[in-house]
């Protein structure tokens, strides 16, 4: 589903490369943690996957698309196959929680009559039924984060990218969200989750990719046979 081959990323204003010589592969149905210190390049790696940034060198393939060669038309088609939780949430400020989530469905041309039910379902999954009508500025940090998670889930995407989705959540909510991601993974979705929560990583026992200064320094699945 996701394959990085000798990928590097230089930002125009950055002195050091944000990513250098990153190679890995994520197959169907996997659940992968992405760890590393602040500034290691986790968000940059995810941004490459959803084509917010293009690789400076190397090859990035996601769900059949080659990011480096994506045309303007293909970008939305790629993104509709992804669910993304952004580190800074990126909620539309002038829409309520429910409208924010519904928007992700409208964009993909969902039938108007199924939207309310699906929105209600994911709001329930993140425990925010009672905040459906609140605007982002009326939500606490953790509530905004959960709306962002709900939006990423609502499309039942084949690939879910979550950038630090529990940074503003308490332990119980973190466990809830994590369980949600596992359930989704169990139903076949590939999940890639960038996180600093090493307790979570250690307990879960999933595959771990660790970045350090843009280099992939650890891959717990490195000794496995890589599928073709």
């Amino acid at each position: 589903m996701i394959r990085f081959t000798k990928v590097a990323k230089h930002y125009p204003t950055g002195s050091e490369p944000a990513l250098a010589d990153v190679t890995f592969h994520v197959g169907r149905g996997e659940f992968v943690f992405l760890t590393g210190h602040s500034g290691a390049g986790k968000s940059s790696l995810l941004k490459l996957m959803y084509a917010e940034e293009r690789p400076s060198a190397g090859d990035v393939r996601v769900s059949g698309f080659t990011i480096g060669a994506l045309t303007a038309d293909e970008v939305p088609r790629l993104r509709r196959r992804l669910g993304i939780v952004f580190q800074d949430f990126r909620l539309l400020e002038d829409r309520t929680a429910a409208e924010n989530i519904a928007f992700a469905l409208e964009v993909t041309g969902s039938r108007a009559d199924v939207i309310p039910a699906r929105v209600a379902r994911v709001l329930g999954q993140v425990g925010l039924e009672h905040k459906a009508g609140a605007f982002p500025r009326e939500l606490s940090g953790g509530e905004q984060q959960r709306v962002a998670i709900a939006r990423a889930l609502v499309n039942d995407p084949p690939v879910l990218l979550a950038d630090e989705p529990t940074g503003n959540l308490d332990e119980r909510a973190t466990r809830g969200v994590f369980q949600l991601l596992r359930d989704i993974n169990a139903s076949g979705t590939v999940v890639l989750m960038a996180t600093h929560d090493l307790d979570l990583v250690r307990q879960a026992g999933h595959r771990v990719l660790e970045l350090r200064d843009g280099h992939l320094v650890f891959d717990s699945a490195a000794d496995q046979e890589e599928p073709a």
Partner: protein
Amino acid sequence: MNLLWREALLSFRRTRLLSVLSVVTIAFALFVTGLFGLVAMNLRLALGQLEERVEVVAFVQRGTPSQTIAVATSDISAFPEVREVLYVSEADALERARTELVEFQDAYRDLEVNPLPPSLELKLQPGYRDARSAGEVAERLRGFGFIEDVRYGREWVQNLDRLRTIAGLVGLAIGSAFALVSMVIIGVTIRMTVLQRAREIQIMRLVGATDWFIRGPFILEGAIKGFLGGVLAVALCGAVFAAFKGQGVGLGLGLTFFGPLEVLALLVFGTLLGLAGSVVSVGRHLKRV
């Protein structure tokens, strides 16, 4: 389609201030253009009236038999340039001088001999009211034996020619200047809308919206704003016109307002302006967001 309209109206509701500014700006631009149009239209009508007064006067020798004059009159009427020929007898001329030339009323009152000659006054056809045609007609009139002299107020005709040219040039200059200013303001307004929503557009893209999905509501909104601006502009023009009309009557000016066709043109022009502005600037800016 339903979604498109909903998004366009939503965006109206949510950026109310900017939307109002856009409408006002477009209205202002169209208003200025419309005002100029009104002035031009009324100027053209007024010039038409002035042009009608372009005439050629042929002084007739005293004592020319009235039959000769009658024959000549019908000959002259057949000139392609001539619309109307009027014979002014000696008595008519004196009468007219007495009423029209106030300063000399007394002078004419006491006269025992009539110093004024009879004349033929020619009005020209619309297409021929210029210095050259009048000159040619005058030349031909001089061919008649009983015609003593021909005047066609060369200067007057030439002045009119020049006035028309200048009005055209000035109109063109003002018109294009304002059109340019309107376009700039509209472009800037729309670009600002896009800029203000840059974050929103970015987020829409990130959740998989296509360019056309994002563009649609902007463009529809632009068209609606342009149309509203047009409506407002027509209303403003109407208000200003009404105000001036009151003044103009006192001055003896008969002012004319737009017909339904011109109003429609203004509305269509507004809509197109809003449409074009949004298509161009959304397109241009979306590349950069």
